[in-house]
């Protein structure tokens, strides 16, 4: 067997140009696959990071509160009780924290923009300081009422920096404009799409802006020790909340905000809760991941077909060139299947070497582009959820891609190899040319 390997390998080497061309094509496809894979993983990581910390938690309990049937507010009333149920129900809970949810116009001297507001209680936000990277100012001040933490892109748009004043303005139910003056206590580094329209405000200040009371919050964010248990935990918590007498809306993997319109059409009034996981919350953008993956699948498939044709052709040529050799080997006692293996190994070696080169190249390319922090055009930021292009190496995915491509190369080579093995030794030996 090792001798067959040697023959295959040396034949590849001795037909350097042909092998280089085909191997190069295989390497190219692998590079593309690895590169797109890194992009997909990178985007996914960014999404996860920004979604988890900025908006959703690993999972969360949100609430729809309706005073009249047609109008719901994103509120969880008496949230302390909900927190107690969570703490009792989920065995692998890390911590819970309440986040107010709001929607207001943020106005500076020079500009204004519509923003989502997360009302935070810094005493119960152990992860926020780890994740938010401040460009200016400091995060501790967010514990004090009247401060706001904004992100770089917002600071640019509003033309403000740490220490400057801003005004929040909301239209209340009664049609009056309610405003609150705040000071920018810090500007944080952008962390993807969600940070382009979200700001952080002390819960107390948000309550003042929305004129809600302290026992009410927007959502209870849940952080787990083990993220793999999320689907079970969502079910567990739904049952527990229902058991405690809460109305819980039906499970659907949509973002909280997406469901609001549906809830508004329903007849009931009062409080209903909803339990969602982080991927529900960003489900409206996770299709971009599927799109990237689909695109790489499609491209790879098309290119693989082309390569398969190339491999077949090159093996046909090799078999014609080496017909007499095949005849000789068969004459001196080589069994058919070994002839087949000899040629299949050639394609296999080519596959292994080509994909290895491609994987290295693709990873390298991804790492370099990652280090360059290429800006994502504004229009696409919504889909990538980040302002710079991020790539992440996923070894399992890279190895998987290599295996699949090598497998395809090997399988396709079975056809010509089989024909080579079927040749009658006598015709093969007397073959001229």
């Amino acid at each position, binding site marked *: 067997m090792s*001798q067959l390997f*040697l*023959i295959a390998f*040396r*034949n590849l080497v*001795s037909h350097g140009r042909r092998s280089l061309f085909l191997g190069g094509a295989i390497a190219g496809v692998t590079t593309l696959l690895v590169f797109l894979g890194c992009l997909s993983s990178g985007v996914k990581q960014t999404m996860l990071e920004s979604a988890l910390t900025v908006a959703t938690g690993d999972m969360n309990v949100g609430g729809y509160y309706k005073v009249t049937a047609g109008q719901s507010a994103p509120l969880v009333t008496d949230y302390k009780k909900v927190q107690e149920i969570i703490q009792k129900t989920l065995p692998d809970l890390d911590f819970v924290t309440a986040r107010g949810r709001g929607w207001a116009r943020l106005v500076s001297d020079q500009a204004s923009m519509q923003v989502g507001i997360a009302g935070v209680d810094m005493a119960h936000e152990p992860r926020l300081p780890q994740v938010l990277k401040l460009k200016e100012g400091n995060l501790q001040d967010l514990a004090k009422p009247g401060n706001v933490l904004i992100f770089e892109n917002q600071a640019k748009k509003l033309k403000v920096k740490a220490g400057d004043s801003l005004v929040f303005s909301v239209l209340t139910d009664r049609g009056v404009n309610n405003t609150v003056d705040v000071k920018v206590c810090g500007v944080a580094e952008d962390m993807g799409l969600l940070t382009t329209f979200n700001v952080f405000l002390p819960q107390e200040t948000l309550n003042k802006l929305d004129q809600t009371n302290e026992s009410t919050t927007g959502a209870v964010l849940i952080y787990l020790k083990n993220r793999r248990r999320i689907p079970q935990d969502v079910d567990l918590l739904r049952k527990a909340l229902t058991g405690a007498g809460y109305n819980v809306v039906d499970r659907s993997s949509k973002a909280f905000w997406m469901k609001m319109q549906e809830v508004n059409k329903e007849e009931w009034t009062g409080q209903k809760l909803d339990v969602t996981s982080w991927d529900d919350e960003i489900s409206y953008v996770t299709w971009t991941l599927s799109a990237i993956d689909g695109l790489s699948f499609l491209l790879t498939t098309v290119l693989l077909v082309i390569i398969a044709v190339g491999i077949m052709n090159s093996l046909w040529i090799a078999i014609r060139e080496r017909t*007499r*050799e095949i*005849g*000789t*080997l*068969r*004459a*001196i*006692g*080589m*069994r*058919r299947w*070994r002839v087949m293996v000899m040629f299949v190994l050639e394609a296999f070696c080519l596959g292994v070497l080509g994909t290895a080169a491609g994987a290295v190249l693709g990873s390298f390319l991804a790492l370099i582009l990652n280090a360059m922090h290429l800006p994502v055009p504004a229009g696409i930021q919504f889909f990538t959820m980040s302002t710079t292009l991020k790539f992440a190496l996923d070894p399992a995915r890279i190895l998987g891609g290599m295996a699949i491509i090598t497998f395809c190369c090997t399988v396709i080579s079975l056809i010509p190899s089989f024909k080579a093995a079927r040749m*009658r*030794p*006598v015709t093969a*030996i*007397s073959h001229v040319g």
Partner: protein
Amino acid sequence: MPKNTEGQDIVSIQNVIKEYHLDKVVVPALRGVSLSVEAGDFLSIVGPSGSGKTTLLNLIGCVDVATSGTVLIDGHDTKSLNDRQLTDLRLNTLGFIFQSFNLVPVLSVFQNVEFPLLLQRKFTKEERAKRVDELLEKVGLDKHTQHRPSELSGGQRQRVAIARALVTRPKIVLADEPTANLDSVTGENIIDLMKEMNRVEKTTFIFSTHDAKVMSHANSVIRLADGKITDGKGAKAGAH
């Protein structure tokens, strides 16, 4: 299966007809050939080009089957064997030397000679190395074991081929015009070497040639013309 013992016929051919079918034309290559070869013989098949030498050697070599008649090789009727059994018969009982050497170009001299032993899977690495080195020394190529065939002269390549044919200690070695691609001095050296091997290893050699000088080295000679034996030990179906 009957096995031949020393002195008996190791090849036995009876009334063999071989026809090639080219489109709708039937080309008769052998027209009723009968022949027996004793073990240990050094037999030459001679005849003009197109007389059927290669065809006959292919039948003895089990790479082709007769249209009719029987071919017994070391007691095995080749018609009754399937491809795999024929392959194993070629591997273990037969050795081949070709007109154009037919070495594997990407393997070294040593690896070319060792190859049939690897196919046999009967010997350890050390046993193989011993056998190969021994043979390469006998054919005078012990200084060239790591060369590739392309680095050798025609005569040297044919010596490698002889070593490869003998490495499994086959009962019969077949050589189809082994000297045709060599100059006459080199050609004669090759025949001398084959004869030496025939003497030392007791291997039966059957070789074809159309060179009278080469033929003169043989113990026995069979003459073919137009697909029939005209002279020699099996010449029953011959001349008249």
